[in-house]
């Protein structure tokens, strides 16, 4: 953030002779070793480097993460990107708890790429899959503990007393016997030169003694984000920078032919140069507005893809409606993901059978910050890039591959994300940084490229679509005894790979697979259908569609069997105390299960629906209350009980539930990316509306801590929203909706 890059402490680290020039300086360290440079008041200490290099165990290179400043503030280089989900604050809480430092004293930035920051237990470093906290929690606690041990050791040396006589209070080391104390800031220089202790020697705090973990600690970024001080990729400024805008080929795969009016555009106000890029043309100018207007003016004869094309080609006759019909017509072959019991026999002997076909819609990410990237080649041949990303190491590796530079020559900066929801992974053809790098190279000056909202809607990757055919059998009591779901779809992971893997893409079927209901005979299968649209991850991924399908169909079974949908779920979850508790918790939060229809105080006729989901290691149960207003669905309240096992920050969780509900309602009520003639109909929010404030529901949250393994929080509150709303609508109107969004249907 801006104020951080201007601190005097940072300036002290400038090599002698370098002019003080704020915008040219590094403001996030380029490498793990670079972070050491920021250690106040000391040159790069050889012992630190050795410590960093010698310690192999994950998340133990303390100086790479932490800089404790003389004013007793702590700068933490966070392995995860902050995009609103509160990970900076959560990491400060976790590290601060064991370091014994108030999280409010933390300043957090994204760590650069590098092995030192691979802290997740699955050996990855990404900000996604709702994994940041749950996959790094023990490691980041230990990191704080290691740093505290180093500070204690340094204090022992400085005070000349045994470590065993020392203790800590937030931000300082105490020597009780002499009554002396030293602030961490006074010890940091010495401490960080010490070898990192054996991780096994660290004793973590008793959770019963937590001061900050589990508490509603205030977000560290709340003030900066309320006053425009927060810096996003789009805000980056570097000296001598030029601005760029692009015009993409109308269909992916097409190439640049003749530019009819290149000379005229070159002569336009402020234009520096006109460039041809793969599948795009660009204008570089002194101001972005000039670049944008000029590139829009370029008249390009776009050519059909050549034989050497490696991209997924968008056909001229592609339509989203046509593609869904195509999926619906698929009959196989299908691959089983789950197969239990004897489905055929159970179906044959069922008293009643139910069949239904469900489908969903393409959706865009619609994060409010349009994609951008800034690239600068330094005189030594190294490259710096500022860009939004959810996986810095993958991005740096890709840049290395594209440029032929060694990874060490590439400095990747990861500013705050203006929303992400899955948008900022490594998507071929959907990220501006390759263009920015090419342009910076071409003009020999730093270039900031911003995609207009229109270009973003043209190149954003889409959330996948599926057509799922369900069959189920009910016994004489109306209880489900068999269920089959066959989904004709392409999952995002297999879409990125361009082919089906040896195993089923879990992101294709999650939410159909992994359901906890005790239905003895079941089959969940996928018909893989490779499509022409570029796909990607969208908040809660496969669950965002599949839980809508499954939980809606489950209500159909309840209706057919004459069961109450809430009671049926409780029945199917008997013997599962965790989910039984959760379901009962949401009913209690909503004042008891009362499906309606009933007449509300304002005279409107309303009903409620219930649904559950178990995504990303957490479990959620949702009740929605709806009415019909002018033929459209109005959602009044969402009650959500969520069990992530254990938690770090209940206030941030409540905010995340609100956010997930908003996105969940948005896809339920109004969002749909319509494609016709190989092109998206919407190129801005006018034709692709996202949930506006007046359609937000009141949200009531109950956090249930079962004490089970910690689960995710960013995505799990989303998937149960759509089916809870659809089930409430069916209850109220008798109309069973099997496709989204609801605004495409008319209700009475």
């Amino acid at each position, binding site marked *: 953030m801006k104020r951080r890059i201007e601190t005097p402490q940072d300036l002290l680290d400038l090599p002698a002779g370098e002019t003080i020039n704020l915008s040219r300086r590094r403001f996030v360290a380029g490498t793990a070793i670079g972070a050491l440079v920021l250690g106040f008041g000391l040159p790069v200490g050889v012992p630190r480097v050795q410590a960093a290099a010698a310690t192999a165990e994950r998340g133990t290179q303390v100086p790479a993460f932490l800089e404790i400043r003389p004013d007793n503030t702590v700068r933490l280089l966070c392995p995860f990107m902050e995009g609103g989900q509160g990970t900076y604050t959560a990491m400060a809480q976790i590290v601060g708890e064991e370091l014994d430092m108030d999280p409010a004293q933390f300043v957090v930035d994204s760590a650069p790429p590098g092995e030192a920051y691979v802290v997740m237990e699955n050996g990855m470093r990404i900000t996604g899959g709702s994994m940041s906290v749950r996959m790094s929690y023990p490691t980041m606690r230990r990191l704080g503990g290691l740093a505290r041990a180093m500070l204690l050791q340094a204090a022992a040396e400085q005070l000349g007393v045994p470590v065993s006589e020392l203790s800590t209070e937030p931000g300082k080391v105490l020597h009780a016997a002499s009554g002396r104390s030293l602030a961490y800031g006074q010890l940091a220089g010495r401490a960080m030169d010490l070898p990192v202790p054996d991780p096994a020697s660290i004793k973590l705090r008793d959770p019963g003694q937590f001061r900050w973990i589990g508490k509603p600690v205030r977000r560290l970024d709340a003030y900066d984000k309320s006053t425009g001080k927060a810096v996003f990729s789009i805000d980056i400024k570097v000296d001598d920078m030029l601005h760029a805008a692009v015009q993409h080929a109308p269909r992916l795969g097409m190439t640049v032919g003749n530019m009819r*009016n290149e000379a*005229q555009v070159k002569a336009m106000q402020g234009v520096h140069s006109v460039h041809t890029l793969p599948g795009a043309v660009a204008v570089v100018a002194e101001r972005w507005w000039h670049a944008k207007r000029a590139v*829009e*003016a370029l*008249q390009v004869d776009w050519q059909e893809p050549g034989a050497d094309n490696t991209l997924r080609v968008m056909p001229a006759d592609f339509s989203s409606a046509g593609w869904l019909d195509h999926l619906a017509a698929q009959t196989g072959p299908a691959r089983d993901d789950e197969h239990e019991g004897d489905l055929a026999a159970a179906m044959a002997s069922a008293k009643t059978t139910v069949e239904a076909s469900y489908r969903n819609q393409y959706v865009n990410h619609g994060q409010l910050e349009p994609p951008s990237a800034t690239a600068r080649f330094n005189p030594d041949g190294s490259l710096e890039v500022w860009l939004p990303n959810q996986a810095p190491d993958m991005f740096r590796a890709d840049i290395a591959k594209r440029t032929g530079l060694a990874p060490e020559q590439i400095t990747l900066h990861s500013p705050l994300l203006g929303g992400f929801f899955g948008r900022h992974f490594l998507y071929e053809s959907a990220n501006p940084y390759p263009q920015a790098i090419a342009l910076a190279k071409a003009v020999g000056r730093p270039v900031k490229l911003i995609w207009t909202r229109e270009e973003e809607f043209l190149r954003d990757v889409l959330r996948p679509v599926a057509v799922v055919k369900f069959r189920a059998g009910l016994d004489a009591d109306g209880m489900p005894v068999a269920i089959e779901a066959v989904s004709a779809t392409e999952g995002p992971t297999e879409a990125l790979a361009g082919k089906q893997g040896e195993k089923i893409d879990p992101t294709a079927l999650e939410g159909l697979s992994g359901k906890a209901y005790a239905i003895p005979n079941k089959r969940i299968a996928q018909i893989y259908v490779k499509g022409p649209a570029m796909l990607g991850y969208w908040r809660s991924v496969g669950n965002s569609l599949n839980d809508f399908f499954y939980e809606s169909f489950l209500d159909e079974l309840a209706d057919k069997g004459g069961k109450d949908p809430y009671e049926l779920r409780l029945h199917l979850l008997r013997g599962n105390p965790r989910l039984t508790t959760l379901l009962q918790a949401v009913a209690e939060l909503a004042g008891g299960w009362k499906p309606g229809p009933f007449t509300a105080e304002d005279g409107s006729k309303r009903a409620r629906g219930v649904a559950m989901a178990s995504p990303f290691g957490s479990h959620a149960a949702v009740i929605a209350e709806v009415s019909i207003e002018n033929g459209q669905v109005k959602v009044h309240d969402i009650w959500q009980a969520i069990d992530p096992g254990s938690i770090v920050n209940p206030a941030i969780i409540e905010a995340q539930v609100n956010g997930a509900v908003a996105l969940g309602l948005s896809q339920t009520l109004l969002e749909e990316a319509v494609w016709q003639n190989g092109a998206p109909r*919407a*190129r*801005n929010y*006018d034709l*692709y509306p996202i949930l506006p404030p007046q359609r937000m529901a009141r949200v009531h949250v109950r956090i249930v801590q079962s004490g089970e393994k910690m689960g995710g929080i960013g995505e799990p509150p989303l998937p149960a929203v759509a089916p809870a709303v659809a089930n409430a609508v069916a209850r109220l109107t008798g109309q069973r909706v099997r496709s989204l969004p609801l605004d495409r249907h008319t209700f009475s």
Partner: protein
Amino acid sequence: MSNRRFATTARWLAVPCLLAAGLLAWYVTREPASPFTTDTAVDAALVSRGEYVARLSDCVACHSLPGKTPFAGGLEMATPLGAIHATNITPDREHGIGAYSLADFDRAVRQGVAPGARRLYPAMPYPSYAKLSDDDVRALYAFFMQGVQPSAEANIPSSIPWPLNMRWPIALWNGLFAPAHTYAAKPSQDALWNRGAYIVQGPGHCGSCHTPRGLAFNEKALDESGTPFLAGALLDGWYAPSLRQDPNTGLGRWSEPEIVQFLKTGRNKHAVVYGSMTEAFNNSTQFMADDDLAAIARYLKSLPGDPARDGKPWQYQAVSAAGRLDAPGAHTYVTRCASCHGLDGKGQPEWMPPLAGATSMLAKENASAINITLNGSQRIVAAGVPDAYRMPAFREQLSDQQIAEVLSFARSAWGNEAAAVDAKAVAKLREHTDPASSSPIILHMR
């Protein structure tokens, strides 16, 4: 394509069919006379002049498709009887007009008769082009033969079924409604006025959209001798306003320089081009010479208004939409419209047009107001540069009722006194129209 001109009705086909039964076959199959007995020598200057006449006449708007070879045809015009397509008019000898003599070309352009005495559908505005001077026809021919690349793009047959696809009755229609003479200068008027009258009535074919049509889909007047001439007309989901001196629905409040500015840059303090006029501006009027634009302005300013039709002249009344939040539609106006058009309705001239006193907010016909609210504006491309600001499409955000209410609000605010808009009218246009493209659409002539 459903927003394009000439797409709504086939009365001009059906009515002549009924009239035709008793008339003589020779009349309908004859080849009319042309003054051109021999082709003229062609030089570059003539080709260049012909290109300018093609700009004046906006041939490209119908005979070219974006991204395709210029003048290779293809624009679909949907009619209730079936679709017809503009033809290939490149000099390709097989698929285009390469085999046409100057006389053949003349008969097609000015009289709507192709070689072989085949009658063109009057979607081709030959009733206006009939007024083209011999010199301009000669130049136009030179341009199409020498300045246009031949294309072997095959013409798309019409999908109108037999017997409605018989074309000979058009000859009868022509006899009734198409003039047989080129423009004759009025000695009582000066040269500027006469030049303006020539462009407006002839190549500019302004009346095709702006003059109301009769039962046979004929323009009710083809020059200033008839008061319906350019008095405003509803065509294909847009209301082309009066170009007469009507202060509310016409050009009564516009000065001559403002008319010139509008046709040259697409905008002035009163309005910004939108709807079908965007195509006319993008492809035609901005390329007109300043003298010609001045002539057009002079001529249009000479056409008197009609207070009986136009009503009481509009007067601005200051009121802020924010102060009327309880009025139906006001909330939508404040949240969706006011950023650009202002709480005071005055817009941000010359980039965002005012709604206070705007024709679409004063006219009885509300189609344009509904259409642009549903579908937004096409990009205006002036001097090769797409516009800085465009009107968004609201069809995905606002219901028929909400659009009806917000337009009713705007049509009754700031001194506007137009009838309320009915949700059914919105629903009807919603069904028959598509959102405008957010990308610039450029049609090339070479």
